[in-house]
């Protein structure tokens, strides 16, 4: 898979349900960030998890990181219609030569039905 590839590509759930999105990457990372993008709008930072962390919480968001499997998951609990958006993971590669550029995944389009 490509660096920063999310699955599923699209997810449709009922309001109140939990939504889980996964991200896989290829190279070793310094950290991994999740962003949300409403249709045609900017990228909103959700959470950053460092390579030495395994789990992080922020409100209704829970992110896990498994560096041995080179994967991360984003869980949104008790989803709301306002959570409808595209969600991207972005990785910052560990190699010094890669600088601090972020490599984005293809994104998961989440639709929360009221």
């Amino acid at each position, binding site marked *: 898979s490509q660096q920063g590839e999310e699955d599923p590509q699209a997810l449709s759930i009922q309001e109140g349900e939990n939504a889980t999105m996964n991200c896989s990457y290829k190279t070793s990372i*310094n*950290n991994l*960030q999740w*962003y949300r993008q409403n249709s*045609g*709008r*900017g*990228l*909103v*930072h959700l959470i*950053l998890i*460092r390579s030495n962390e395994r789990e992080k919480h922020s409100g209704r968001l829970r992110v896990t990181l498994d560096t041995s499997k080179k994967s991360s998951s984003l869980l949104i609990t008790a989803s709301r219609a306002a959570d409808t958006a595209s969600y*991207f993971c*972005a990785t*910052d590669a560990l190699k010094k030569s*890669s*600088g*601090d*550029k*972020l*490599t*984005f*995944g*293809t*994104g998961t389009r989440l639709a929360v039905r009221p």
Partner: protein
Amino acid sequence: EPEVTQTPSHQVTQMGQEVILRCVPISNHLYFYWYRQILGQKVEFLVSFYNNEISEKSEIFDDQFSVERPDGSNFTLKIRSTKLEDSAMYFCASSHRGKIDTQYFGPGTRLTVL
């Protein structure tokens, strides 16, 4: 909460024309970035800028592109002679400490080249 701002929100230009996209990063941030997102595709890194010089650039960032920090607050991206394939959403981002820190994105400038 401080945020990255970008102007204009939408720019329409003719092929071959020069465009300047403007960004005001968060005031105490030291690292600045430009990314772009062609419609329906991934967000792609263009260039990073620190200490008044380019620290890294992608293959996309060819001689037609340049960046500048003309004063203490603005960060600009210039495209000298636009092509149709330059049509995209351009995002500016900034971070305080670079590699170990969150990158905060602006709302984007939608560039349409006719």
